């Protein structure tokens, strides 16, 4: 697309065009995404409604799927509290494995590494 600007002999208007077009496109892309994602649940819901209508049923309890219920919210708050106060470890996954591993490996921290070192095949 370098046709747009003569890169060897640019002037300030080119700089402003790049800036303005560039920033506008960033907004344009994200606004388009917003529109589509806003529409998405409605379209999906429509399909659901149609299907349910065919089956002769009515949609009633729509709202309780739309919003996270109160108790979940409370759990989230608690979790956040724990999260910020406990310095929870980066990857509970790995940590868990390590803990289980320890159970099977009666090594003190220093010896433990020798067990590890067995992997070394120079």
């Amino acid at each position, binding site marked *: 697309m370098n046709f747009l600007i003569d890169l060897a002999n640019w002037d300030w208007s080119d700089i402003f065009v790049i800036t303005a077009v*560039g920033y506008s496109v960033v907004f*344009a892309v*994200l606004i388009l*995404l917003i529109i589509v994602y806003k529409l998405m649940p409605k379209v999906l819901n429509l399909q659901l409604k149609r299907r349910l209508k065919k089956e002769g049923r009515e949609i009633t309890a729509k709202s309780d799927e739309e919003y996270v219920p109160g108790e979940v919210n409370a759990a989230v708050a608690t979790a956040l509290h724990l999260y910020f106060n406990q310095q929870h470890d980066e990857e509970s996954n790995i940590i868990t494995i390590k803990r289980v591993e320890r159970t099977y490996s009666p090594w003190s921290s220093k010896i433990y590494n020798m067990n590890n070192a067995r992997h070394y095949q120079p």
Partner: protein
Amino acid sequence: MRRFVKYYTALAMLFMLFVTGMQAEAQAVAGESGGAFFNGLAKFWENSGFSNFDIRQLVMIIIGLVLIHLAIKFKYEPLLLVPIGTGLIIGNIPLPVSDAAIGIKDEGSVLYYLYFGVGEGVYPSLIFLGIGAMTDFSSLISNPKLMLLGAAAQIGIFATFIGAVLLGFEIHEAGAIAIIGGADGPTAIFASSNLAPHLLGSIAIAAYSYMALVPVIQPPIMRLLTKKRERIIKMPPPRAVSKTEKVLFPLIGLMLTAFISPGSLPLLGMLFFGNLLKESGVTDRLAETARTSMVDIVTILLGLTVGASTSAAMFLTVGSIKIFLLGAVSFGIATAGGVIFAKAMNLFLSKEKKINPLIGAAGVSAVPASSRVVQTEGQKADPSNHLLMHAMAPNVSGVIGSAVAAGMMLSFLM
């Protein structure tokens, strides 16, 4: 007695070599002008790191140590600052002039091959694949309008572009430097590998340094631009997001962004691909590998070689100082852009839908550091207010926005 003999036999064997060596020297001394051994040792010394040493390389090594220190002590972006710091040390060990290919610039050396993935933009793409496979976009899907904040904060990129041109950088260089304002490491590396490979080291280090300093840089700006009354705004909890929406998200995102800004395809195509692997529900093992071993291997190699490619001659320049200044300013502008845009949006929103403007700061794409800063600041104003989930929406859309902006720069400047 038997042991005694064995002992001395072996000992003799051990030192025989030295003796022979000394004899050789003695002969050399006789025949030539000096002891071959000490001659050799002296020549060896002349060519070792100690005698080739340049004070600027020492500075680079100290910078490397400082980055490692920051990473370990303050946990600032350790996954990249530890490898980059080590790379800086490795890349600035003075090397002898030799046929042996050791340095990252010597064709055929190990580092030279490992650097290939940086120079050709392969590593950043693969990192985006891993990021896609580990990121949950549901907070964004549940409240799409917050994506505007991720767009607004990209003003940091374009302000930096103008700033860089003003400071005298060539136009391609300015385009590469601009991406620092997006607060996204792999994107900055990808852009500068294409636009200004000689600045890659400075840009990458500036980008990661400021990303590391997010908890230091952002809070004062956030407090300056908001009133207590705004900081205590509570936002309604995000709605639950269905699996279908989660699957459609990456597909739609991929197509829309790629159509409008094809230059961002190597980054965003991979990001959304990774996310599809995560959300499809039928490719869990691929997503798991993408977000663990694959991204780890690439991170190790990316960090190490980015560091090692940053030589003193290229880094310790006035240009780098300008890049760091631009980086600091652009971070501030990006943060301000996000916060102010959030306040502007509130003018159009009904009371119960008002946005807490703090989350605008998360529009820079430092995920999840910015979101955590927002959470912390929000709790300072009202300990019962949890903004983390809400901040994730502008935060991840900031990643998308930065990549689109980088794609635009590539489109315009290549």
